[in-house]
């Protein structure tokens, strides 16, 4: 019998207990993975906004609670535009609005029509809105399909009924699921005259993007540049706190799980005292006894991680369809989430299994053999 099969036999001897233990591991893995994939989904949604534009990087207010609270006034925007190497600085005001139950956080982007081209917008049907219009908008093609609207349709948003003048594409699913309004109309509706949320910067040919970023960071210390998702936390603290909460929850789940696993494995070791004593008596080393208990833990970890990930898929799907969370919560399963699942399960079972394994290894063979 191969050695791993022997470990499996030990687990199968107490099917109920092993299943219970695997279920505990699976439950912890499910919580950790669901938190991770939903926070990853939130991060993806939040960071998607900086990748809409055809720009080298975005500039936002530093350290705001969330990116949509960023405010950059006209003078700051002008200072950005004057930084050497900045070829173009497109300011946009980004806001959200509940359109209906299916679209509780519909994205609205205020932008000057003259910036649509540089921003990377391609008009698929109709035409752009007028710069000074107060009741015109364009819809991303995904949003139009989702809402069942087309050029000429009426779209109630921003406190008024707007005529859809065009359908656009940005090549970015986040941007294509939004609506665009004249910047002045969007600023007026949000009572933020002259304010933009983000400035998208295109660097002039021959300049180093990093050098221009550093120059803006230096000259406008109240603002920060964002090029990658990992830099997102510079502006948006919410995601930083969310990630910290997920990490904290993971550690907590591992510790609680380890206690459950340890307690159960210890019971198993006590019950198998005589058997472990026999194995020591016939020449099993302490290391091999530790290996046996940890192999059993490892099997539980792998089974628990597998079940946990499956449960996480199911729970995430359910959460995404809870009316209060529709459109807000998106599970984003990444390779990292699977590694996190495996590491959580391994952490729980190895930390939890170490003490029982050590206890088992330290059994005196003769005493263990006479154990009743």
């Amino acid at each position, binding site marked *: 019998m191969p050695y791993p099969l022997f470990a499996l036999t030990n687990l199968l001897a107490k099917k109920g207990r092993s299943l219970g233990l695997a279920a505990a591991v699976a439950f912890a893995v499910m919580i950790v993975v669901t938190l991770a994939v939903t926070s990853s989904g939130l991060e993806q949604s939040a960071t998607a906004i900086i990748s809409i534009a055809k720009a080298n990087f975005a500039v936002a207010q530093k350290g705001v609670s969330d990116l949509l609270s960023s405010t950059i006034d006209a003078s700051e925007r002008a200072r950005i535009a004057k930084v050497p190497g900045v070829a173009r600085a497109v300011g946009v005001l980004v806001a959200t609005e509940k359109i209906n139950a299916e679209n509780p956080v519909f994205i609205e982007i205020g932008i000057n029509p003259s910036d649509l081209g540089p921003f990377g917008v391609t008009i698929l049907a109709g035409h752009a809105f007028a710069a000074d219009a107060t009741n015109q908008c364009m819809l991303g093609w995904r949003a139009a399909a989702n809402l069942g609207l087309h050029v000429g349709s009426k779209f109630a948003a921003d406190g008024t009924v707007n005529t859809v003048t065009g359908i656009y594409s940005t090549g970015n699913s986040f941007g294509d699921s939004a609506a665009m309004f004249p910047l002045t109309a969007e600023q007026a509706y949000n009572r933020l005259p002259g304010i933009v949320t983000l400035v998208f910067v295109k660097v002039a040919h021959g300049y180093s993007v990093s050098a221009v970023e550093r120059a803006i960071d230096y000259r406008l210390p109240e603002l920060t540049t964002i090029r990658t998702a990992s830099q997102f936390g510079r502006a948006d603290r919410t995601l930083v706190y969310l990630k910290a909460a997920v990490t904290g929850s993971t550690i907590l789940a591992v510790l609680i799980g380890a206690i459950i696993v340890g307690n159960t494995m210890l019971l198993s070791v006590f019950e198998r005292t005589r058997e472990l004593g026999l194995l020591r008596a*016939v*020449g099993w080393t302490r290391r091999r006894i530790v290996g046996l208990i940890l192999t059993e833990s490892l099997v539980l970890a792998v089974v628990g991680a597998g079940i946990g990930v499956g449960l996480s898929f199911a729970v995430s799907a359910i959460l995404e369809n809870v009316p209060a969370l529709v459109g807000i919560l998106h599970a984003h399963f990444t390779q990292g989430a699977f590694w996190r699942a495996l590491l959580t399960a391994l952490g729980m079972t190895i930390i939890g299994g170490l003490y029982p394994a050590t206890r088992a290894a330290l059994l005196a063979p003769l005493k263990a053999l006479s154990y009743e």
Partner: protein
Amino acid sequence: MSDPSSSPVTAPPSRQAQSGARFAVELCDVVKRYPGGVVALDHIDLAIAEHEFVAVTGPSGCGKSTLLHLVAALDHPTSGTVRVNGQDLTTMRDLSSFRRHEVGLVFQLHNLLPRLSVLANIEVVMYGTHRSSRARRERALELLSEVELSGLEYRLPTQLSGGERQRVAIARALANEPRLLLADEPTGNLDPDAAQRIMDLFEKVNADGMTVLLVTHDEKLATRADRIVKMKAGRLAG
């Protein structure tokens, strides 16, 4: 309690074994005192030659199992030295390796793992040796044939008779080809016929060259050994 100052009785190897043979087991002035002051072994000197079949007999509590436990490296003497196959167990660090390679153990209670098949029970002592999974299986099958249990490979211990279980335990003890077989009351729970079959097996492995140290309170069975060592109150009685 015995008087530790009394002179020890020495049990030399049999005349047949003395003729130029090396010792498989040597106990020199061995004392085993348990916490509370109970003296289980009182200045024991015992030598067992290689290939010898020795039976240790005596009443319950006379220290014969304690003696066997010391030889099996399952316990340490309070004083004195225990040498097995030329190795001093009192100074040895890796007793696990010694138990795995040098001795085979058979207990009164067979101590088979109840959820493992007969075959797996034999294989389990070969984990950690140089044998591959296939070689372990082949060795286990070979041993089952030797103890005349071929065909029962996949039975569970609960599906075997007492004698069959003890034969599986003997096969397990022989798995790593030890030079010394130690048996502690192996026939204690068996009927006379089954006990005789177990003794047949011990004679067979002894004839194949293995040293056998048998602890039994059954003096009739003990007569099948080359030599009988009697114990009484922690001492050798002649």
